């Protein structure tokens, strides 16, 4: 019975500490006001980033170079996504010879000119930015990762030998910890 109690207390501490972290991360998550989505119209001028449907995008999930590829799914309306972008940028700059970061924007078409372009420009983002524009989400989400429920931020890390999928946000340290599993 003592063991039972001890086990209970220990798992309570472990579980609740994990939860606190989740709460903090999720608390930072907010979406844009609905008005933004409605009032903005798509500009006629060409968008600066490549726009893929899933079929054309899929090769980016299976590159066969010697690098480790970090494919991050994000959107300008997703606050926790924006919070972790600097860490992906940092990793991309610091380990350029070994790591390649691809930032996959899931912004909606009416946000490409009005939100995405200014955002990338203002933040001076150096990593490759592509747009995935394929509404058949139920078809392609499991093709990225069977376990993905559809929440963002989400990140796929892969190289020739292995691949892992994360439906969560990262700190710089956490990202490096995961990345090191691929680099060593």
């Amino acid at each position: 019975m003592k063991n039972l109690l001890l086990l209970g207390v220990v798992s309570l501490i472990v579980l609740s500490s994990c939860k606190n972290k989740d709460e903090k991360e999720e608390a930072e998550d907010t979406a844009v006001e609905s008005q933004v989505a409605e009032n903005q119209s798509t500009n006629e001028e060409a968008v600066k980033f490549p726009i893929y449907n899933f079929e054309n995008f899929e090769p980016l999930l299976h590159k066969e170079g010697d690098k480790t590829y970090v494919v991050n799914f994000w959107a300008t309306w997703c606050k926790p996504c924006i919070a972790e972008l600097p860490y992906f940028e940092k990793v991309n700059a610091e380990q350029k010879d070994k790591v390649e970061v691809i930032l996959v924007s899931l912004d909606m078409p009416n946000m490409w000119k009005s939100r995405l372009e200014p955002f990338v420009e203002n933040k001076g983002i150096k990593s490759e930015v592509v747009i995935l524009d394929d509404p058949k989400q139920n078809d392609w989400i499991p093709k990225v990762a069977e376990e993905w429920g559809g929440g963002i931020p989400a990140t796929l890390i892969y190289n020739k030998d292995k691949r892992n999928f994360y439906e969560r946000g990262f700190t710089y340290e956490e990202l490096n910890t995961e990345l090191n599993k691929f680099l060593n």
Partner: protein
Amino acid sequence: MKTFKILGLFALILSLGAFTLSPDPMDDGYKIGDIATDFSLKNIDGNMVSLSDYDSAKGFLVIFTCNTCPYAVAYEDRIIALDEQYKSKGVPVIAINPNNPDVQSGDSFEKMKQRAADKGFTFPYLLDEGQEIFPQYGATRTPHVYLLEKTSQGNVVRYIGAIDDNYQDASKVEDTFVEDAVDAMLEGQEIEVKTTRAIGCTIKV
């Protein structure tokens, strides 16, 4: 002793799920065939709404949605259409805003009233005050649909997921997941696609 430990851990996980203020919604939630909990949540008209209020309903489209998520906004008109189509057939829409208004001010009770009036919502739009309902259902995103069938055992979960397969353009929808599910349920047939996935906005806790 081993059994005790396992039982203890199990009980602990259960109690955590029941008592923590914001359990991780990815951990559990309903699966197809589970009995969904009823609730008593405040509607935008000030009245409390429960599933048990609907004597003659055959089922419910419980839709977790909100004012602020671009995906939820993209589906507003289609949610109204679903209610118009199925309320008369005994399957009304019950919309629930699961977001914490302290975190997401655009989803406050006042803003919900405003949005419902602007869009002419024909269904209850409830606030999950205290955020105790959405984790039990296992909703993780907005919009997130749960189709329930009323049975003698309770409200059985029949479908979980997206409304259809094209959030951007209602005219380009090929698979009407929710409509297909409700139609099959009302005809007493097996629902072909019982769960679907979609990109959506994380629920704000």
